[in-house]
């Protein structure tokens, strides 16, 4: 019997795959959560100091990965929503969403982790590097709080780990000698982590290579999807709200406002968006919020036009007039009477808008006007890789191809939805 693969099958598959691959880590995280809750009841004020963003991030993804499969299996509504046939574009979007939600589970590394640059810098994809671990000085665990701290240190990946040493090669004699780019170092055997009497040498795989600071490209790609999707959705929500309110004002509030708004729309439309964005970001500084707001502001015109034409057709319909005569407030009118009608023609535009915004964000990051160096972003990765174009192709090709694939699949989904709603158009 042949089963048609639907989107929710694929979503479930990804979730289960992550759970199976990260089972031990999830167990540790659950322990951590338990300890946090425990110490929260014992001594509340110190717990908050320990909770950094990455801890919260890890715990949220733990909670999500437990609840999401249950939700998908139990709720019929979600399954119906995701009941379309799986295709390439859908699966790319699913993978992106998974990267967005479960970035700390997909890679067990901090995106800025760097150590021993001389060994790890500019490694090609699929290269693996050996490393040794130095024993920690055993500390006695005294109170509950230091237990929490040491647990957090153990479980949550950090951007630096002094006990981990990447090596090119090693010689085991009376003492342990290792080489980092032809420089010899010596260390006592007793200081190293051992298995059955010998120093333990593990190896780490750089799946998509490493950049000029020895950071793992795969990890940065996974975390970079967060910036793209946050900016994409955030900016689209901003422009959706702007376009809808302006359109409502233009339709409901008389001729003068309508005229002014139409002229302003002309102005925005007759202006190369990227210059506007660049000017505003140059003047007001760039961080993630300003980028979301600016990109949202630069994209509301098309939504305004669509929403306005739809509202003009609703305006004289009887159900709308009666709702107005009953005395509904403007916000309720907008939410209850207009939004449900308008959302379908607008949704196609929204999806294309997300693609545009993701493209604009990466272009801004490429120009160095993006969200800064605090978070990895695909555009910024390409910009950094440009300097090493002669020696390491993967630094521009991998983020570039990931960006291209995401944009293509978002546009493809937009076209599919468009075809679904107006089959006559194609």
């Amino acid at each position: 019997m042949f089963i048609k693969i639907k989107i929710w099958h694929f979503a479930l598959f990804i979730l289960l795959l992550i759970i199976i691959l990260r089972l031990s880590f999830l167990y540790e995280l659950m322990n951590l959560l338990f300890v946090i809750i425990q110490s929260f009841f014992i001594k509340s004020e110190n717990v908050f100091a320990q909770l950094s963003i990455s801890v919260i991030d890890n715990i949220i993804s733990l909670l999500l990965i437990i609840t999401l499969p249950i939700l998908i299996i139990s709720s019929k509504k979600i399954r119906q929503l995701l009941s379309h046939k799986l295709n390439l574009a859908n699966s790319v979007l699913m993978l992106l969403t998974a990267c967005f939600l479960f970035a700390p589970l997909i890679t067990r590394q901090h995106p800025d982790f760097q150590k021993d640059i001389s060994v790890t810098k500019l490694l090609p994809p699929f290269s693996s590097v050996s490393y040794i671990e130095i024993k920690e000085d055993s500390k006695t665990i005294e109170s509950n709080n230091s237990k929490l701290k040491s647990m957090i240190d153990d479980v949550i990946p950090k951007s630096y780990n002094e006990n981990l040493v990447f090596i090119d090669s090693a010689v085991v004699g009376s003492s342990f000698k290792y080489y980092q780019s032809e420089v010899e170092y010596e260390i006592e055997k007793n200081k190293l982590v051992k298995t059955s009497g010998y120093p333990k040498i593990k190896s780490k795989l750089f799946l998509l290579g490493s950049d000029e600071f020895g950071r793992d490209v795969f990890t940065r790609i996974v975390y970079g999807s967060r910036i793209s999707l946050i900016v994409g959705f955030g900016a689209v929500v901003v422009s959706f709200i702007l376009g809808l309110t302006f359109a409502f004002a233009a339709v409901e509030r008389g001729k003068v406002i309508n005229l002014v708004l139409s002229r302003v729309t002309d102005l925005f439309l007759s202006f190369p968006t990227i210059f506007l964005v660049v000017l505003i970001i140059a003047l007001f500084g760039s961080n993630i919020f300003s980028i979301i707001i600016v990109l949202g502001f630069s994209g509301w015109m098309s939504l305004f036009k669509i929403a306005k034409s739809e509202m003009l057709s609703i305006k004289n319909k009887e159900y709308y007039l009666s709702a107005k005569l009953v005395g509904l407030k403007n916000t309720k009118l907008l939410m209850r009477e207009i939004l449900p009608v308008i959302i379908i023609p607008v949704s196609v535009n929204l999806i294309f808008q997300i693609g545009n915004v993701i493209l604009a964000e990466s272009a801004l990051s490429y120009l160095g006007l993006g969200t800064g160096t605090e978070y990895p972003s695909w555009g910024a990765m390409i910009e950094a890789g440009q300097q090493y174009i002669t020696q390491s192709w993967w630094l521009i090709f991998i983020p570039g191809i990931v960006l291209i694939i995401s944009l293509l699949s978002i546009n493809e989904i937009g076209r599919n939805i468009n075809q679904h709603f107006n089959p006559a158009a194609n």
Partner: protein
Amino acid sequence: MKKDFYRAITKRITSSILVLFLLVTFIFLLVRLAPGDPTQKYISPKLSPQLAEKVTKSFGLDQPVYSQYISFVKNIFTGDFGFSYNYRKPVFTVVKDYFLFTLIFSSISFIIQLLLGYSLAKYAYNKRGKFIDKLFSNLSIIAFSLPTFVVGLILVYIFSVKLNIFPTSGVNTIFRDNLSFIENIFDHALHLILPMITLSYAGTAVFYKYLKDNLDSVENSAFITSLRANGFTEKEIFKNHLLPNAIQPLISIAGIEFGVLLGGALLTEVIFSLPGMGRLTVNAIFNRDFPLVTACTFIAGFMMIISNLATDLIKIKMDKRFIKELIN
């Protein structure tokens, strides 16, 4: 009819002037609202209070906002954008050279886009329904959504780094004094091939897609069938009936595209470090050179408005229906 014609033209020009004023106002508001006092750069704590006040006065910041606005508008329309902080020259003289490059570069790219888009669409129209038609239509969708800077870098990697055919950046080789005129032109062309491809592929895809879709929809209309039945040749039908009807919507797209190009192709110019308006703007931003940034943004917007106006005037000339649309 003649009266309508002039009325439409005046109406269109007035609306352009209005939009231009809105643009200037918008830039003024942005510059004023921006955090940070522009005089701070010039006033050190060691300066005597009298002198500091004098500096503030020289910026005109002690005047009320509306008179600042009036002088801002006046300066912009007389072409006086102030002094560039970085170049220590009037902004106008700085922008002039860069603008000339952008004008030539983007005009060539625009012509390439139009010609290539047109000939590809014509070719695909002649082979409609066949494999090559479907291939082109899919490729155009893909090409349209490819990010410019990634494509540019991939081209640089393939053709400059691996195959070593084209240079990576700049517009000419450094030692060009002993080159003859023809060698000089060849040198420029060699430098500009990759930027030209990067700048033109997306526009070509857009022109192709629009023209091809229009050709297809006109092709399906009844009058073409009737013409065919009357025994007109395919060539005559294409030239006299299909193309004039299909090219109409392309004109407004072309206007927008040309306006964007004249504003400077930011990303392409940055990738290949070409001396155009786009890179000038980006560099001005990094140098915090606000008079220059303001001027560049204004010129980009101005070019856009002018080319939109020009396209609409062409449309008025070509299509009587458009006049009615404008007047109402």
